[in-house]
């Protein structure tokens, strides 16, 4: 094939960074030079390295360009495509060594990853089923269709695959329960209602490799005798929905979906349900209620969905990442799969690295890698060379782990012991500028907002916890607030109806456990060491650093800053509203808080 291939990341991150505009400029440039037919420009799913978008990879040499803007198109075409010279300035620059890297495999962010589930993301065109097929797609299904159903379930069981959405229940067991449940009609539901703030791996998989999810569902459906399935996707993921639609259409055309799939006699009908904006619908019974057209309020378990789920029929629910693992297991065998990871946590896990970290993005690593490796080797360490303070893992249901837990191997069980959970795999890194009390308050605001209101502990209890945290961050905390918080947290954990309520206190419990000092400081000394609780801080100009440039004075919305040019400036604390505009603008780190 004479065509050269240029792959661009068409994930949500890169698109919002201008990937499509850059692509259009590139095409225009190629047209101008009558070269359009020589190059095949392919949009792929997310490469995971959102920080560096838009990302373009030029094949066959796999040159990895990042931050490509429309105005770079001419140079890229002239230099690389015509003259075969690499455009150095668009290469990734290692934040530590400062060296420019040509191939993404040499980038620390990718080097330590083990991209299995994300293997196709950023490589194939998610809107073209042929590319998926040529990447061994649907081979797992073909293999499964020749197997006994119980054998498939056994295979998944022995792979050790555990649910990637939250609690980490054995996927094979879940299938087995649904398989054994009495009932003619059964359903499989893919939970793509990824709602944890700070998590976007499911979105990336759906955007980058939708067929893997469909194939996983097909295998599950075949194994448990389901003939109908739903993918419940957040409406906030329009691109994922549209790629999934295309994928379903193509799978139907190729006979992977619909009646009598690949002549096996097995039929499967797959539908998409768009969520309508309720975090709690990530809880499986609430999700089912939502599919049924009801308020997304969790239902008591038992009965478990495996026995009585959608419209009272046995239903198996798995999340996106879990299902995307399934074709892999069938294709490569349970043994190969189980070789990765730790004793009780098998395979890989995709993490979303966010917060104060250099390389934000998605990283897939084998289970058991330490937090340190993930954050520093892959994530490139804390942004702006600040001190690592904590990492929040598992979203609003998870917990905050401090620096002393950095060597914790990341697997289901170790995390639970440390007071966090795997959750969907969001990792939010925090530096010393993040106030842990405020962070706990932030998460409580979230869960309280998203509480469905059904059960008393969650509805009323999270409200009271939030109010206490608000008082503490406002400097109005009282000493016994900490006991009250603790008691409430335990009662809510003990007695809430669903997972949302049962885990809502986790961010508070884990910050109380690891950052009690900060709480006490807020209450007893009226101090916020991170300088983020505005009621507890005052802004001042750090004389050593101020050169009197006047930028701060200009941006201050309330004219609280005074000072002549080239003379030390001053902040009138009575006027200051602590908006932070001056800090953001000052290039000399001359405005500080205390």
């Amino acid at each position, binding site marked *: 094939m004479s065509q050269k291939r240029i792959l661009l990341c068409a994930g*949500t*991150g890169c*698109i*919002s*960074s201008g990937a499509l505009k850059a692509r259009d400029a590139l095409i225009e440039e190629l047209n101008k030079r009558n070269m359009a037919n020589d190059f095949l420009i392919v949009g792929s799913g997310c490469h995971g390295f*959102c*920080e560096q*978008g838009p990302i373009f990879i030029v094949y066959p040499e796999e040159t990895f360009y990042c931050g490509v803007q429309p105005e770079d198109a001419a140079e890229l075409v002239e230099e690389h495509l015509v003259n075969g010279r690499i455009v150095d300035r668009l290469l990734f620059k290692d934040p530590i060594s400062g060296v420019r890297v040509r191939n993404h495999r040499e980038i620390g962010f990718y080097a330590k990853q083990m991209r299995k589930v994300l293997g196709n993301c950023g490589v194939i065109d998610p809107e073209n089923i042929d590319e998926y097929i040529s990447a061994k797609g649907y081979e797992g299904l073909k293999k499964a269709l020749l197997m006994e159903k119980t054998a498939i379930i056994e295979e998944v069981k022995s792979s050790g695959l555990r649910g990637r959405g939250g609690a980490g229940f054995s996927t094979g067991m879940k299938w087995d329960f649904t398989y054994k449940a009495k009932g003619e009609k059964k359903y499989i539901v893919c939970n793509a209602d*990824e*709602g*944890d*703030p*700070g*998590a*976007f791996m499911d*979105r990336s998989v759906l955007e980058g490799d939708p067929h893997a999810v469909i194939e996983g569902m097909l295998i599950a459906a075949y194994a448990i005798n389901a003939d109908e399935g739903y993918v419940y996707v*957040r*409406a*906030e*993921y*329009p691109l994922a929905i549209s790629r999934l639609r295309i994928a379903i259409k193509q799978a139907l055309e190729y006979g992977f979906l619909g009646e009598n799939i690949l002549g096996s006699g097995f039929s499967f009908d797959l539908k998409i*349900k*768009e*969520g*309508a*904006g*309720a*975090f709690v619908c990530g809880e499986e019974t609430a999700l089912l209620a*939502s*599919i*049924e*057209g*009801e*308020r*997304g*309020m969790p239902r008591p378990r038992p009965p478990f969905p495996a026995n009585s789920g959608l*419209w009272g029929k046995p239903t198996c629910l798995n999340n996106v990442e879990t299902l995307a693992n399934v074709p892999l297991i069938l294709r490569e065998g349970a043994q190969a799969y189980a070789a990765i990871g730790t004793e009780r946590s098998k395979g890989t896990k995709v993490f*979303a*690295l*966010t*917060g*104060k970290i250099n390389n*934000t*993005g998605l990283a897939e690593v084998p289970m058991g890698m330490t937090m340190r490796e993930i954050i520093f080797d892959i994530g490139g360490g804390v942004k702006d060379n600040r001190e690592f303070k904590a990492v*929040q893992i598992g*979203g609003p249901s998870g917990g905050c782990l401090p620096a002393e837990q950095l060597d914790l191997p990341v697997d289901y069980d170790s995390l639970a012991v440390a007071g966090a959970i795997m959750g969907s795999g*969001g990792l*939010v890194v*925090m530096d010393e500028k*993040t106030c842990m009390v405020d962070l706990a308050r*932030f*998460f409580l605001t*979230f869960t309280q*907002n*998203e509480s*469905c209101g059904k059960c008393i502990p969650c509805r009323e209890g999270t409200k009271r916890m939030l109010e206490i945290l608000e008082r503490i961050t406002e400097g109005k905390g009282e000493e016994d607030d900490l006991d009250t918080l603790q008691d409430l947290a335990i009662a809510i954990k003990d007695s809430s109806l669903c997972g949302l309520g049962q885990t809502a206190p986790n961010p508070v419990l884990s910050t109380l456990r690891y950052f009690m000092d900060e709480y006490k400081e807020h209450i007893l000394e009226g101090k916020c060491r991170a300088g983020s609780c505005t009621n507890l801080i005052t802004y001042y100009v750090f004389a050593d650093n101020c050169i009197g440039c006047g930028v701060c004075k200009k941006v201050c919305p309330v004219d609280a800053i005074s000072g002549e040019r080239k003379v030390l400036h001053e902040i009138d604390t009575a006027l200051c509203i602590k*908006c*932070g*505009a001056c800090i*953001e603008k000052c290039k000399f780190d001359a405005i500080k808080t205390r």
Partner: protein
Amino acid sequence: MKEVLRCYAEDPFDYKPVEEVLVKFQGVKGALIPILQAVQEAYGYLPRQALEYVSVKQKVPFSRVFGVATFYAQFHLEPRGRYIIRVCQGTACHVRGGAKIMQALKDELNLEVGGTSEDLKFTLESVACIGACGLAPVIMINNDTYGRLTTEKIAEIVRAY
């Protein structure tokens, strides 16, 4: 008392869009939420008459239709702007200054969260997480995502609409 069969012909409200939506969903199981999504798509919000019509035709109690409509953040019972600005309040955005972005938008549009401008052009909303945390802080205007925002960029972005 509930009047099961009102005479819709006499009502000045335009029932055509909701009628069309219901035709599309005829016989679909558990279709209430997709129906409401389509009704909102058609009217820009969920008008009371349309909901009542859905209730009667789908044989779902009106109270339940209302209960569902008020449960999900996506649904709106008041007319909204042509451009919905959703400001991400996710963790990543939070630690990267999401609140300031929100303030800047409030100032620029002179709106509170949940508010709609008088010309029905913009509605300002907060959203729990858009899932584009790598680009934090992030906003969405309809289906377009804007990331790595600073307060200065806000005016420029908004004025482009």
